[in-house]
């Protein structure tokens, strides 16, 4: 076997895939999209966030339960199993529930079979084996975390000398790099991407190169790419700024403690000052079928294509939404030989729309996603309806089939760690979710309960991708 191929054992069958990709991408390319079944209704779930932030890809890998397939690099001989058996309601009940969920109202297990005491005991005994997902680990084994580039995660005297730092900047995207460059003192930037630039950097570079001279017709893409490149360059010139890739902040403890995970190792970090620039998460929306395998957000798309090299050539892909990510997804997909169909959910920007028409991308405007369903193992059917209050074809529903559906919109600011250590948050749906109270246009600046200064900037502050945007529709 050549070294660029590896063989996995999936459900006891051999699966051959490219080396250097993630388990989730490898299975996808082998036509296996359902990675797990949901605990209650037993619905098939596929890779969703591609970033270790959801539940959809939890599998038993090398005897360890609940391992994230999207964050695990393939290696020869790896055993991969779905954790389907006996999820909460059991297979028979799940079948029933899938069709008649009104039989089981919310919280029915609190209310049914409580009397007499003997029946209640029998009920408990009966449901106990159905609880839980995944069996306890077989025996300790090594599960590798995915190297994002060809080079293995360099261990920059990584974790040992951390201990306490003066200024930690979490997130190496444009907002984080800008904060680092503005700082006149040494700072440490941590991010899970191997090098500075953030979630869009690689996708932007590739898309811009693909567009070549046509790039001028996509001013938002050009501006975003320029900005990141110039920040990357300035950052590399500053000796007092340090970057640690392959690292994620996985917990916050008051007053000023963080847990950093580098690969599979943890280190504790005490900071004097924190800048939170951890960006945003994809938001897929609330509509029927919003758990259909193959529905992802732009950030997941960038990771699957740029990090895992997922093959999409020749595939129809539906991209719905607005903003920078809509155009970036479309351009990246066409760079990879996919056939993007674009649905702009607002009025859209004329410059880009006319450019997209010239690209020969399918295009509709003023529509939004109404529902999704799987029609074949590798095909999704989407129903689109006119967006109220937006000009566009009225009353014309649209049915589209696609291999992959990408929903682009405002991201959801990442907030859990800063909230844990004492920053006040409030719900502002227009800003994508919870955002720091008393934030300004440039983000949030304040102090933690014990007095340590904290800044929250960029998409993490709910201020949108920091690029000229076409103006979000209502």
């Amino acid at each position: 076997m050549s070294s660029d191929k590896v063989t996995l054992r999936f459900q006891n069958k051999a699966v051959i895939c490219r080396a250097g990709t993630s388990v989730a991408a490898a299975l996808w390319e082998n036509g296996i999209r359902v990675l797990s079944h949901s605990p209650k209704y037993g619905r098939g779930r596929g890779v969703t966030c591609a970033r270790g932030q959801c539940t959809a890809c939890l599998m038993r890998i090398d005897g360890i339960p609940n391992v994230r397939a999207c964050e695990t690099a393939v290696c020869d001989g790896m055993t991969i199993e779905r954790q389907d058996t006996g999820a909460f309601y059991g297979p028979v009940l799940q079948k029933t529930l899938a069709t008649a969920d009104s039989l089981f109202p919310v919280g029915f297990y609190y209310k049914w079979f409580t009397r007499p005491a003997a029946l209640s005991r029998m009920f408990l005994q009966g449901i106990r084996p159905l609880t839980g997902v995944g069996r306890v680990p077989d025996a300790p084994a090594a599960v590798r975390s995915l190297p994002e580039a060809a080079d293995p995660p360099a261990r920059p005297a990584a974790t040992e000398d951390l201990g306490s730092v003066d200024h930690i900047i979490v997130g190496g995207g444009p907002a984080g790099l800008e904060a680092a460059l503005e700082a006149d003192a040494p700072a440490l930037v941590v991010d899970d991407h191997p090098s500075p630039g953030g979630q869009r950097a690689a996708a932007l570079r590739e898309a811009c190169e693909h567009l070549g001279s046509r790039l001028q017709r996509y001013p938002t893409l050009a501006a975003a790419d320029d900005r990141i490149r110039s920040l990357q360059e300035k950052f590399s010139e500053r000796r007092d700024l340090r970057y640690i890739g392959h690292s994620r902040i996985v917990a916050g403890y008051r007053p000023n403690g963080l847990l950093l995970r580098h690969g599979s190792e943890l280190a504790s970090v005490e900071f004097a000052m924190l800048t939170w620039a951890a960006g945003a998460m994809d938001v897929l929306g609330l509509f029927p079928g919003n758990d259909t395998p193959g529905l992802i957000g732009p950030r997941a798309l960038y990771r699957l294509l740029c990090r895992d090299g997922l093959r999409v050539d020749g595939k129809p892909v539906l991209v719905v939404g607005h903003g920078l990510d809509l155009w970036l997804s479309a351009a990246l997909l066409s760079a990879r030989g996919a056939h993007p169909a674009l649905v702009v959910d607002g009025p859209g920007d004329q410059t880009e729309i006319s450019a997209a028409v010239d690209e020969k991308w399918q295009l509709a405007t003023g529509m939004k996603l109404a529902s999704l369903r799987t029609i074949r193992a590798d095909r999704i059917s989407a129903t689109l309806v006119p967006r109220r209050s937006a000009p566009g074809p009225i009353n014309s529903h649209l049915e589209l089939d696609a291999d992959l559906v990408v929903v682009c919109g405002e991201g959801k600011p990442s907030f859990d760690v800063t909230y844990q250590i004492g920053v006040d948050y409030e719900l502002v749906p227009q800003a994508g979710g919870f955002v720091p109270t008393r934030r300004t246009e440039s983000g949030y600046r304040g102090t933690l309960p014990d007095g340590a200064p904290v800044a929250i900037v960029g998409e993490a502050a709910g201020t949108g991708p920091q690029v000229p945007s076409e103006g979000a529709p209502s």
Partner: protein
Amino acid sequence: MIPLTREQVPATADVVLVGAGINGLATAYELAQLGMKNIVVLEKTYIGSGSTGRCGGGIRQQWTTEENIRLAQESVRMYENMSAELGYQVFFRQGGYLMVTENENDLPALRDAVALQQRCDVPTDFLQPQECLEIVPDLDISRIKGATFCPRDGTAYPFAVVWGYARACHRKGVKIYIGTTVTDLKTTEGRITAVETDRGTIQTPLVVNCAGPWARSLAAGIGVELPNRQERHEIMVSESLKPFLDPMVISISNGIYFSQSMRGEIVGGIGDSDEPRLPGPSRFKTHSGMRFAVRFAQALLSYYPRAAEVRMMRQWAGMYDVTPDHRPILGGVDGLDGYFHSCGFSGHGFMLGPMTGKRMARFITTGRRDEIIESLSLERFSRGDIQADAFVVG
């Protein structure tokens, strides 16, 4: 079902209970059972938001004083019937409690405790380390010197218990107000007259202080001095896995306890002698610490190495309302008519709550102190009648 109103409170009530934890709700339910009307429960945040919702849900009969054994035994009987009684599934599962020690010197005390428990009809047995493997097959017994096991101990889901009581209370006409803070108790000539809240005043002749860790400051407002101290305790749950652990394992050597819930999570905590006991102001520090996560993980793996690849999902902290002898304070106060308290449950109010609720309700309605109310009265501290239990763990 449970209309948790945020309205203005009523102008009058026959009795007001402060706190919708297990004690407030169980007492309210038992008062209603005894035919009392116009019962009002006031809760400053939400149901179970105090210690009850933060606790490990453990219920055991393995104690070293006869009184504690009898109290717990009575509670276990109530828990065995609770789902049926309340018409609400509280997930009481009797997987037993395995109490282990790493210290030879503890063995005589363990054997004495077993003998006492058996005399009280609690089916506890003494186990050699090897025998522990029959109960927890993957237990690392290399440091364990001996253990005791009672198969009828168990765990219940704390939120289900308080919701179940709340629902049953509601059916009996008890009014529960959430988001309502008692700011003051009013007395005139040695009698309770009213309860003041941030949503209005309620005239009432009777008030029951079930405010858990906040009980001390509430009582202080009317000159009742409680010896309670507040101690922060941390706890965590793991990811949910298929059943693999039946009992609660608890170590009297390092204070760790862990079991597997009906959702499949490992639920566990560990005591920390470095935690200060605070002369409780009414606000508490309930943040999670990294120190706990590390100490718990180390202690867990020392007994259950197979959990090395199991993940911790969430950790949190709660308050123990601790008394000098770790026993609750029940009853009333001489010279202050209409005032009652049920607090100071230390680390075991969840297991005692149903039973103490019943006895408190009987005391409140009849005025007769039974032997438990007598022995757990506040006056015991001035009488010097303190009998501490050796098995205070966690």
